[in-house]
């Protein structure tokens, strides 16, 4: 990370600490905001959050590593999450997964070279009556077919 980037990150986290407060219970909302903006939580950001909340960096890392929606490694600008739970599975999850992989040229768990998309499986999205379901960033898409999946990707691009 460049010094300029570090300074910007520190400033950003200071603002978040102002917004949510210095207590330990602010930790998750702060991390969620960093995740939303950067799609991952860099080591430096974790250290800064720890410093500003006055807790050990290991505490921050332990929280980041626990939650599946918080990442320590960079991800694509759009995180595509396909529900893998049984009813979506029965409704044709695998065909959608293959279509997404073919279209983006990557496997699940990987990020495209242009950093636009990351493909991930996710557990139950609560859309079991309208599966297969896909969550892209914060938006949910019900009843996805292989054809519709590709169409959605194009919209997001």
């Amino acid at each position, binding site marked *: 990370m460049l010094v300029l980037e570090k300074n910007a990150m520190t400033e950003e986290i200071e603002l978040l600490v102002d917004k949510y407060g210095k207590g330990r219970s602010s*930790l998750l909302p702060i*991390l969620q905001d960093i995740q939303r903006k950067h799609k991952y939580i860099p080591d430096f950001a974790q250290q800064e959050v720890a410093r500003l909340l006055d807790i050990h960096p290991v505490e921050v890392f332990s929280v980041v590593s626990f*939650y599946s929606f918080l990442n320590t490694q960079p991800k694509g600008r759009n995180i595509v999450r396909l529900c893998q*739970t*049984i*009813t979506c599975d*029965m409704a044709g999850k695998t065909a959608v997964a293959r279509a997404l992989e073919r279209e983006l040229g990557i496997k699940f768990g990987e990020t495209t070279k242009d950093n636009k998309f990351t493909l991930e499986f996710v557990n139950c999205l*609560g859309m079991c*009556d*309208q599966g297969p379901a896909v969550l892209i960033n914060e938006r949910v898409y019900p009843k996805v077919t292989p054809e519709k999946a590709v169409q959605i990707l194009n919209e997001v691009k």
Partner: protein
Amino acid sequence: MEKDIRKGAVLFSEYNRGEGIKKAIANSREDILFEIRESKLKGRGGAGFPTATKWMMVAAANSEEKYIICNADEGEPGTFKDRVLLLEYPQLVFDGMVIAGYVIGAKKGIIYLRGEYEYMKKSLEDYLEAMKKDNLLGKDILGKKGLNFEIEIRMGSGAYVCGEETALIESLEGNRGEARNRPPFPVTTGYLGKPTTVNNVETLASIPHIVNKGGEWFKKHGTDKSTGSKLFSVSGDCEKPGVYELLWGTKISELLDLVGAKNTKAVQVGGASGNCLPKSQFERTLAYEDAATGGSIMIFNESRNMLHVLKNFMEFFVEESCGQCTPCRIGNVKLLEGVKMIEKKDFTFAYINQLKDLGRTMQVASKCGLGQSSPNSFISILENFKEEIFNGNGGHNGK
């Protein structure tokens, strides 16, 4: 998003925003608690703890600060009733929280919304704003001096275990979502160490109706031990999946007819952590005292491979076990290995029986409810569908 809702006589009966709050604050706290106790309302998340008992303990606790937490972290596979309640009936949920605040003497409510539902955060925030404008939230609610209550929305980040109440509290406090030892229970030592009641979205949504129409009215519905109605999230092999409000005591076969399920082989009652019932048990009733469920009903027809279903469930638990206690962390990995052995037809019955024993050990030795219920589907599917899975022939599948 489509709306597949079948309305019943209790939860989805007519209700206008603020009605319940108005009625509640015109009565004393004790009267409201009495009505709720009369209704015999039990927690709708699945555990079925009497709501009035929980609230009485928090109401009786001697503390300036108390919290009411709405558990909207529905992560159980096959459950989506909270999604429908929060999107279509926020007035029930939030009015329920305000009434809870009045009854137990809490000034703050927190709704813990699962990360996957972030798309509804904005509409819920707008709704809370509108409530504030109408003086249903904030200071001196509806002109009642000293009745202050606010609701904050907090997001989860994709951890199934945070649906367990103490793990949820840990998560709110900025920690890993790992369950606490109980006792002390949240009713005495909850969020930030203060007395806290954690209630399911559906439980809170029942409250305004009970306040409005009385415990007697509520009790008239359902069975003796399971009063009122329940929202069932129906998915899988049927013509009309969606959320169904049915009275407790409905037979599984009745529900199957209603949703247009044909050639049904199995019904998973209670999600991945529930039990898988074969045809011979379809005459059982959905109730706390019989086939208990938090609302998840997944239907499998004759074409489904039950071993594949079980594998999907076990993969879920291996991923979602928080890793804090050994029975759940290691146990689920071992059970999944067992499923894969059966799949490859490379197993002995002696070992499978050992794994079932391991499952029963996990049911008693895991620290939290989620760990304790994680082997349910393993045990029930291997018991109820053994013909199909093992097919005789000396431990190897003859097919």
